């Protein structure tokens, strides 16, 4: 006699079914949990999808902005490149327009009185106008005079590039390319 349950003598029914054991409650519980879980994940996915769509729109706007800025920068760079090219041309022209007279005077002054310059030409290079092609002939001179010429040229910030000299009797032929040295 534990918990009191009132007696009963009604006519028993034959169509009663046995109740399911309590452990079977896991079946509907699992069903409802899967429903809740499914709803949760679907909601989260839907929210993530909406967020991704928003992010995509934002990213597209940023990309367009970046493309616009890039295009502006490219245009600006193209304009600057054009200006640079023009400036380089001007610089070349300025380099090419450097006076030759100081070189001639310096070479002439470097020669001793007993030596004579019979022939001297200075030509600008067509490709690089700042480079000068020097050719001269020294009568009664020697290698000393050539050294004097080179040192006088170097004082004017020109470097003798690929110098060639040849002696034919008393005549020394000297050829060199003078390259302007930037300070």
């Amino acid at each position: 006699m534990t918990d009191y349950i009132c007696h009963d003598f009604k006519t028993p029914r034959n169509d009663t079914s046995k109740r399911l054991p309590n452990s079977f409650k896991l079946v509907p519980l699992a069903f409802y949990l899967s429903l809740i879980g499914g709803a949760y994940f679907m909601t989260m996915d839907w929210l993530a999808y909406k967020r991704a769509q928003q992010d995509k729109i934002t990213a597209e706007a940023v990309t367009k902005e970046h493309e616009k800025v890039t295009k502006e920068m490219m245009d600006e760079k193209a304009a600057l490149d054009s200006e640079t090219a023009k400036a380089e041309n001007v610089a070349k022209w300025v380099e090419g327009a450097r006076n030759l007279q100081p070189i001639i005077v310096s070479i002439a002054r470097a020669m001793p009185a007993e030596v004579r310059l019979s022939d001297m030409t200075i030509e600008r290079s067509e490709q690089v106008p700042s480079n000068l092609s020097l050719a001269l002939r020294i009568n009664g001179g020697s290698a000393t005079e050539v050294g004097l010429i080179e040192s006088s040229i170097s004082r004017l910030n020109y470097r003798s590039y690929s110098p060639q000299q040849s002696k034919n009797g008393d005549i020394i032929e000297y050829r060199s390319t003078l390259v302007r040295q930037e300070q």
Partner: protein
Amino acid sequence: MLLDEIKSVLSFAAFKPEADDASVSWSRRFEGRKTLLLNVGRNQTSWRGISKKGRFDDGGVMEGEFADIAPQRADEWRLLADGGWCVVSVNNRFIVSLENNMMRGENCVNLLRTNPRAVLGPKFDRGKRYAICHHPESSASMLLACEESMVKVTEDVLKTIGIRPGRVCCGLFALTEYAIHQLYVAQRGAVPANMILISACEGSIAVLVQQDGQWKELRCRSGLGPDAVETSLQIISPLVQKVPQGSPVYFVSDGQDAKFRSELFMHLERIGASDMTQEDLLWNIIGNH
């Protein structure tokens, strides 16, 4: 059919006890559902509803034969019960006797309902329905035998008006059984070796005598009627003399016979009877336990 079964599993209804599963208390069987309680006397029927929250609703009383009352009150009763389920307490045409060495066991109560011959043996009578209440500490038992024809008629009357009886019980036996449970189980060890338990319900009376811790005598009369105080006292008096003077006398009673109860208790008070009756006790026993 399959859809219904799936629905019952998903709504957990398949795990709840059957509406007429006698091994489960009424309140557990009908949790969250309205039910109807009927107390059928010889010339009177009272009823009460239990709300979805398990509280007692308003009820009613009507004089007359149950078979005449039921069709008149059918609509009202159907409204009080979800699915038409009700408890019926019958209060006449029964006898409670004292038996010894009856079969006990967990399945005994259920077996008494389905195959009473297996429990009662030669004491079984084909035209009776039985219920049993064992003394928890001795081999004595109280055996209720109720007229089967009356139970069947009551059930048939209810079926014709769309009410389904989930439990049919005897009010007097329920009160006695409940009082014994209270004395022997709820207040374990507090039961004196000598005592008398008097139960009364709707004009029926039962007197149980315990001497030296053993149930010695039980007298029961059903259908006495509310005016039979003198007859009741004639049943009680010789039994009171069998126990030593000063032995406790317990009285439990409920039903619509308030006058009978108060007059009877007035006499019992003189021998020091204590009243175990509580408000709505019968409704509480048949509608909650």
